[in-house]
Every structure is written in structure tokens, then in C-alpha cells.
């Protein structure tokens, strides 16, 4: 990887949520292994995408990075500093540098506050921009940055459409000039014609402000459009990670291949291939399969896969994949993945 220090790094990150029984005498009967040993590095200025299906742990990973959840084990390092167990003022100082954009622009804005006070809340929390006129000017600048009318300072969230609300959320996240922005499914609640507006805004802001972006989504096309590098998660683990172009053209992991094949293509003339590659559903993270977690649904699984857990290794396609039997070129074209020439 790059020689410079990554902006954000997570090492062996684990988050287990306990499952308990009983009310008075609570005892732990198991654990939901939401994130189970994730290693990631995010370089300054890049966009890292995290994709995966419901319950794969992508949002939990984001919350752990933000220190919104306490990790069960492992560490989160930001600008070279271990922030996993920071508290109080030092944690607050780190939080100024990393901000989050949420999925649902309807529930992530307080309906009883004006747009102005929503966007200036970060200033109030961190004791910045104490001068009222100064603060108002700054908020209006932020509204302009995200392509909204600064006059709308005194309006309430319900007066805006979903796309505009998401812009307000972006303005709030930018208020403290963070170096890292984590966007958790920022467009999945928006209409198709509006999604592009928000995606273009995020890309434009990133270029202009030199932001580092962690972009979490389930939509593979959106992630392809936005990200420099992509990590694919399955049941709490990264199964494949690599540069965008390599991951989409020559994926090594059968799960990545199946995900790509499953996306319906908006082109009826495209050659038809079998899209339904995986049967069944994702197993429960409370009781994940042994060794390779994908072996229960994998079309290529062999006996080894249920015995020995594969680690992330290079398989020649330009990505790192955790698989004993990576996809061959012939298999890639068989599932309609556009292979690199």
C-alpha cells in the first residue's frame, strides 16, 4: 500500500453484540458477530467503498470507525493515533475531524429545529463561531457549498424534499471542516432522479475540499461510480478488497462475482446470463458457518472450505480475496462479468 501513513486504519476490528436471556438473572447465551476481524486502511484523499448485503456488518464498521460503538476488540487508528479507547476532550477533538452522513434524511434531522440551527449545532457543541452574525454567515456559506439557497436559513426540515434534506445533512457534516467523511447509504432513500444530484455533490465536494470519503452502500453501480477502492463484506468479514477497476472487471471471490451477476442491467439488448447464482439467504451472524463463511452458499465450495479459513491473498486479478478457489477468467465471462482485455 502507500508509503504515507493512512488517514484511517482499523486492525482486527471485532464487534460482538451479546444475546442475553432472562430479565433478573441475565446471562449471555450467544453473540451476534456483526464485525469479526476487519482490517482496512483509508489513504488521505481517497474514497473507499464498502459493499455488502443486509447484515454483513458494513454499518457497524462505520459506527466503530466513528467511535459511535465500542469495539469488542481490535483498534481504530486515526492519523496514526489509536482512538479506540479515547474519552472526553480528546475524543471530542478527534470527532471534529470525522463526520457522518446518514441514510435517512427524514429521521436524521430534528423536525423542530430550523435548518440554521441544525447546521450550526456542531459549532455549539465544539464552542466555535461564537459570534452570532459570524455563525450565521458561516451557515449560509455552507448552504451555498451544498447547492442550496442561503435564504432558507430559517426554514424547517419538513419544507424540503428528500434530496434537499440530504444536502442539509451534508452541510452539517462539513461544518467543522472534517478531514474524513463517512457516508452510510447516503442515497438509498432518494428517488432515482435525485440520487445523481447528491452523488455529484459528494464527488464535487471531495475534489474541492480534498476530503477522504468512506462510502457505504448496497448498490454496486453507485459504489463503482464513487469509489477508488472497494471492500466487499460478507457476514462480518472482508471477502475481497481492491482497486475499483480490478474488483469490477476481474473479481476473484465467488461472492463478488455473484453480487455483480445479480445486478439487473438497464439494457434489454445485453446478453442474458444466469443472474440467480446464489440460493438461499445469508446465514445468521449469531451462528455463522465455520471456516469460510461463504461455503454454505458458494457454488465452488469444497471440503477444504468448511475446514480451513481462507485469508486475504492476491490471486492475480489485482485484488485481495479470501478464497481457496478463486474465480477463473472463463467463470467470469460465464457469469457475464465484463473481463478486462
Amino acid at each position: 500500500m502507500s508509503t504515507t501513513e493512512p488517514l484511517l486504519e482499523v486492525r482486527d476490528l471485532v464487534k460482538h453484540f451479546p444475546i442475553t436471556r432472562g430479565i433478573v438473572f441475565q446471562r449471555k447465551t450467544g453473540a451476534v458477530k456483526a464485525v469479526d476481524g476487519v482490517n482496512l486502511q483509508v489513504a488521505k484523499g481517497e474514497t473507499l467503498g464498502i459493499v455488502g448485503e443486509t447484515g454483513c456488518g458494513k454499518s457497524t464498521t462505520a459506527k466503530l470507525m466513528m467511535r459511535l460503538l465500542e469495539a469488542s476488540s481490535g483498534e481504530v487508528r486515526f492519523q496514526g493515533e489509536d482512538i479506540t479507547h479515547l474519552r472526553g476532550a480528546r475524543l471530542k477533538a478527534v470527532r471534529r475531524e470525522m463526520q457522518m452522513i446518514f441514510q435517512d434524511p427524514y429521521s436524521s434531522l430534528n423536525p423542530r429545529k430550523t435548518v440554521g440551527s441544525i447546521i450550526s449545532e456542531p459549532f455549539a457543541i465544539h464552542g466555535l463561531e461564537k459570534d452570532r452574525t459570524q455563525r450565521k454567515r458561516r451557515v449560509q456559506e455552507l448552504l451555498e457549498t451544498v447547492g442550496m439557497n442561503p435564504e432558507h436559513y430559517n426554514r424547517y426540515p419538513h419544507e424540503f424534499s428528500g434530496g434537499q434534506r440530504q444536502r442539509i445533512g451534508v452541510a452539517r457534516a462539513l461544518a467543522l471542516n472534517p478531514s474524513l467523511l463517512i457516508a452510510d447509504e447516503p442515497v438509498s432513500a432518494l428517488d432515482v432522479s435525485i440520487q445523481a444530484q447528491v452523488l455529484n455533490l459528494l464527488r464535487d465536494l471531495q475534489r474541492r475540499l480534498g476530503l477522504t470519503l468512506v462510502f457505504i452502500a448496497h448498490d454496486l453501480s453507485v459504489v463503482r461510480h464513487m469509489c477508488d477502492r472497494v471492500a466487499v463484506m460478507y457476514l462480518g468479514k472482508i471477502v475481497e478488497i481492491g482497486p475499483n477497476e480490478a474488483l469490477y472487471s476481474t473479481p476473484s471471490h465467488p461472492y463478488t462475482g455473484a453480487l455483480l451477476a445479480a445486478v439487473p442491467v438497464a439494457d434489454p439488448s445485453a446478453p442474458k446470463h444466469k443472474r440467480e447464482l446464489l440460493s438461499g439467504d445469508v446465514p445468521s451472524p449469531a451462528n455463522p458457518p465455520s471456516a469460510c463463511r461463504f461455503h454454505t452458499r458458494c457454488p465452488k465450495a469444497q471440503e477444504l472450505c468448511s475446514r480451513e479459513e481462507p485469508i486475504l491473498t492476491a490471486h492475480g486479478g489485482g485484488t485481495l480475496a479470501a478464497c481457496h478457489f478463486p474465480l477463473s477468467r472463463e467463470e467470469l465471462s460465464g457469469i457475464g462479468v465484463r473481463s478486462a482485455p
Partner: protein
Amino acid sequence: MSGEPLLRVEDLRVAFGTEDGTVHAVDGISYDVAPGATLGIVGESGSGKTVSSLTTMGLTRAQGAQISGRILFEGRDLLALEEGEMRAIRGNEIAMIFQDPLSSLHPLFRVGNQLVEAVRAHNSTTKAAAHARAVELLGLVGIPDPARRAQEYPHEFSGGMRQRAMIAMALANEPKLLIADEPTTALDVTVQAQILALLERLQSELGMAIVIITHDLGVVAEMADEIAVMYAGRIVELAEASLIFTAPQHPYTWGLLRSIPTLTGPREEELVPIPGTPPSLINRPSGCHFHPRCAYSQPEHAEVDPLLQDVPGEPGHRVACLLEVAERRRIWSALQASKAAAEARG
């Protein structure tokens, strides 16, 4: 299309009175669905795609809706039927599946019993026979170990299995028409692929017609024979599926196609969003409802209402746009050329 259509919707209008004014949810739409064919209805939230289908099912009657037009199912006008007659058709000859399978199933009844209810609503069979049929249906939609699964409650099913159970319920009486309203929106992409493949298999086995409502152009491209694009309560473009993607004629369809990122094509290509937001259905823009967001609108487009008209030389292709046909073809080929140039660069 040849022969008698299974479903013919003629100038359907549905409006709801609210405190803020009248919501014109569906504003004069017409389409045909042939037996065994698949029509895709695409549009954003509030475009009227769901209300038009609920009206076909007779499900907007009780809500004080003002409905006009005709919905002919095998020649019978569904809007003129008594509620009792409608009930004999609903769930029997026309069935519907919904977006959210969890809230469509009753949480306190076993899945099998809910299927038994659907079977017995239209057939006077014994409970035992209906139960056998329920298990058979669950097997048909690909639920493993259906006899045991029939004894379980909806919360014990995963999202994909619940949607399969909903489809089983809809198929209980072998309907001639299945309306699927965003059937895969709540599901993950690998499960979505399973459900779409299931619908296609069932369609070829049972020969039913499908109306699939979605916002996802990829889903309709895979499923539909014909596609209707809706905007603000109207159909703005209606054509055979491949034409919508290769030779679309309405600026809104262009906007939709250009605003979605794809898995192929150059990555650096900027998405071209449609500016503005979908209009309120209470205060709709005058003239062409799309004109405030349209890059090609002329001043007179705010005054004249466009009609859904045949495109000369392209049978079955109908567009509601005030631009000249030649002009629309010119703009679309220019858009395609700039895209091809970007692809050559990328």
C-alpha cells in the same frame, strides 16, 4: 398487439380530496396488457404508479377517491362492478404482491394458515385440502421443506422467504393477472435475482400476465415486454422495452437513463441529474408537467398540455412531448454521440 387485451385501462383518473386540496394522483392514463405479457411501469415516488394499480384491484374505492375512466378486465369494466363482484375477482383472477412482505403478512397467524385463508376465500374446499394446496404452493415458490415451513410464523421467515410466501398467496387461485408493486425493493440484490427468476419461471409455467411496478430501470429491462414511464400522474412514454432504452423520445426518460450509474461504461462519466424535484400533485405545473425540469422546454410548453401520441414510423411507441419528433430524435442521437465520445476517451 394482436387479439383482445386481458386488461385495458382507458383514461383512468384518480383524485383524492385532502385538507390541502385535491391530489391528482392519476391523471388520464391508458394502457393495455395482453394475456401472458409483462408490462413494466416505471416512475419515481408520487408518479401515480401504485395508485393506478391499487385502483385496478379496487383498493382505492373505500378511501373517498374520485375515480373516472374505465378498467376493462376481459371486457368487463371493473369500475362499474359492485363491491361483492369485485371481491370475487380480487385475489382470484387478479392478484397483487406488495413491496414490504413483512407488513403484508399477519404476524400472529402461521404462514400456512394465511395461505389456507387465501385458497378458501374463492374455493369451497375442505380445510385439509386447502392445507395440502398451501404446502404445494410454498413448494412451488421454492421454499425448502414446505410442510414444516407452513407451520411457522412470518417472523421466522427471512425477507426473501416472506416475499416468496406472498407470491405463493397471490398464486393460490392461479390468477390471470399478477400486479407486483416494487416486489424486490426491500430485498438484497442476490435475493432480488432469485425473486425475479421465480416470477419469470412462474409466468412461463402458469401463463399469467404481470404488471411490474418499480423505480429500478434494471428490473424492468430484465422483466418487461413493454414499459410505461410515468411522471406526475401521467404516462409520458410507452413503448416496447428495448425502444425505451435504445430510442427513447421523452426528455424525462432521457433524464432517468442518464442519471443512473451503471456497472459498465466509463466510470469517470459525470452523472446527469434531472434538476429540481418531482412536482406536488396538488399544485401541478401547467402545460407539460415536466416543463420546469426539462432542459428543452419552450415558453409555450407551460401552456399546452401534451397528449400521448404515436411516434410516426414506430408502431406501439407513444410519447407525450411537445417537441417535434425530428427534434427529439436529433437530441437523443446527440446525447448518444457525446456518451460514445466519453466511452472512447475512458
